[in-house]
């Protein structure tokens, strides 16, 4: 879609209102889904919906679904703000998965990985990702992909998993629609390219892990970032100051942040975690937790120089009130490895003072007793 800058927002909004009010043919010739529309009985599309319904039934019992009412309500609010009349059909599940991952099924089942949430800086960036996924749903991309496979006589049994991965054109289209939905909802579209720029910086040219459907077949490219940036530059948000929503986003994510960081460090993707932590530390929120996580990264990696770096990170963490009590535990164990027994004894004792309900109390007490005996 190419448009001039003047009056873009109004015409864009009008187009989108129309898009949400009535089906319109997408570029592939398939009409967009209308609100409340369901596929015809016994159609291929109905079968795709049924498969997604089954997936949703599995999620109901899955321990991977994050069942935090406040976080769910927040995500739901942003989904509805973007999806408008389609809101009741989009069911967003937050999945405890430290990878940068999100998916949209044919029936409106959306899965958002916690690793993705950890990597977003504000609500506008969340709106872009949600809008991108909603774009796949509105444009019936799963159905189009199915029809492509049939037309090409591809072995469907072998390829059915690939339905979750959209084509390059579909990704472009979803990017575009995601940005349009952002603008319509009053978000700042300049945040959209930043999602992908930051992710590309984190990858640092390393290949994307093939198991990640969201990124594997169509990874973020400079071309996609340029298109999003170009769109943002040409777009004027007319509904007052464009919303970024950093404070709201950070406040809603904060209760989950500690375990999200723990999951991140334990992915053992240390290089990308290190870059991510650098970004988060620059943003400056929850520095005690972040420096603790940096210390954990070095302690778990244990390469040359890592233990010394972990000590520096833990000590920095302890300068902030939000450093978890486990900082003393980890620091004490690293002192032990570095054979600074006095510091180890003192720091481990401090951990037990700060964490009276520590689940490893008996083991740590045993460690302290051994240090005492060796004095």
């Amino acid at each position, binding site marked *: 879609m190419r448009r001039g800058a003047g009056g873009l927002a109004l015409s864009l909004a009008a187009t989108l209102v129309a898009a949400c009010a009535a089906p319109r043919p997408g570029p592939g010739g398939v009409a967009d889904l209308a609100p409340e529309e369901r596929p015809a009985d016994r159609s291929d599309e109905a079968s795709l919906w049924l498969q997604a319904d089954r997936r949703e039934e599995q999620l109901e019992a899955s321990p991977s679904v994050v069942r935090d009412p406040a976080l769910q309500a927040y995500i739901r609010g942003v989904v509805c703000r973007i999806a408008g009349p389609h809101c009741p059909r989009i069911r967003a599940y937050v999945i405890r998965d430290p990878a940068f991952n999100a998916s949209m099924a044919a029936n409106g089942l959306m899965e958002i990985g916690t690793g993705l949430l950890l990597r977003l800086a504000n609500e506008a960036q969340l709106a872009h990702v949600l809008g991108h996924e909603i774009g796949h749903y509105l444009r019936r991309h799963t159905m189009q992909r199915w029809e492509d496979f049939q037309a090409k006589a591809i072995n469907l049994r072998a390829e059915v998993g690939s339905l979750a991965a959209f084509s390059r054109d579909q990704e472009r289209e979803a990017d575009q629609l995601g940005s349009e939905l952002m603008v319509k909802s009053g978000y700042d579209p300049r945040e959209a390219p930043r999602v992908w720029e930051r992710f590309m910086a984190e990858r640092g040219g390393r290949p994307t892990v093939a198991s990640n459907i969201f990124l594997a077949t169509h990874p973020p490219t400079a071309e996609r970032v340029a298109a999003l940036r170009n769109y943002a530059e040409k777009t004027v948000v007319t509904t007052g100051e464009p919303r970024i929503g950093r404070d709201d986003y950070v406040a809603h994510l904060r209760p989950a942040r500690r375990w999200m960081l723990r*999951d991140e460090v334990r992915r*053992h*993707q240390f290089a990308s975690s290190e870059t991510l932590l650098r970004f988060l530390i620059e943003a400056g929120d929850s520095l005690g937790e972040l420096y603790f996580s940096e210390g954990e990264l070095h302690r778990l990696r*244990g390469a040359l120089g890592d233990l010394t770096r972990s000590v520096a990170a833990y000590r920095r963490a302890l300068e902030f009130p939000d450093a978890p009590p486990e900082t003393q535990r980890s620091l004490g*164990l690293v002192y*032990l490895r570095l054979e600074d027994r006095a510091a180890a004894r003192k720091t481990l004792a401090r951990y037990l003072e700060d964490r009276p309900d520590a*689940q*490893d109390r008996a083991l*740590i007490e*045993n460690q302290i007793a051994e240090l005492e005996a060796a004095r």
Partner: protein
Amino acid sequence: MTRSARLGALATCALLLGGCASPSRYRLVEPGARSTAGAYTVQPGLAWSSIGAGKVETWTIDGLSLESLRFFTGIAEGESILGGRAAEDRRARFSTSMTLPEVAEFVADSLFGRFPPRNVRPARFGGAPGFRFEVSYTTRDGVHREALVAATVLQKQLYVIAYTGTSLHHFARYRDEAEHVIDSVRLTGASARTQPQ
């Protein structure tokens, strides 16, 4: 036996043993002394079915999906406990430079991921310094399970015994037997000679 009865028996077997397409892969473990990887012996009080060998051997009585006793033996420097589906470069690896609380952390992370261990405590493993802990966890399909884990490091190699079972009934059913097996560990060979008794 009719064909349908045989199919029924096979289906039951598959259900109980978690897909025993080849039942002969299982070996009977009689009550009495049994050597594990040449490092220690155990004395089960009940008859178990055993599958696997080498670095991971698994025992069960009623079926793997109901309860299992797993023996991870001789995990050396730079090795992971579970191969699993994680890419080669994404597995936590054992290091002999870990402190004992870090070894416990490594075992819990490797076997149970984000489900935290409870009551991590020092416990002798056949006379060697080691630890035990419990974990409650949920499988991908929503089944609640419990685990009891015992481990030690012998001659720079990690040894773990992990008993797991469904929270509903099976974990409790053989817990005493599992603890009996763990308590019966006796170090053998070089392992025994290097540990204070």
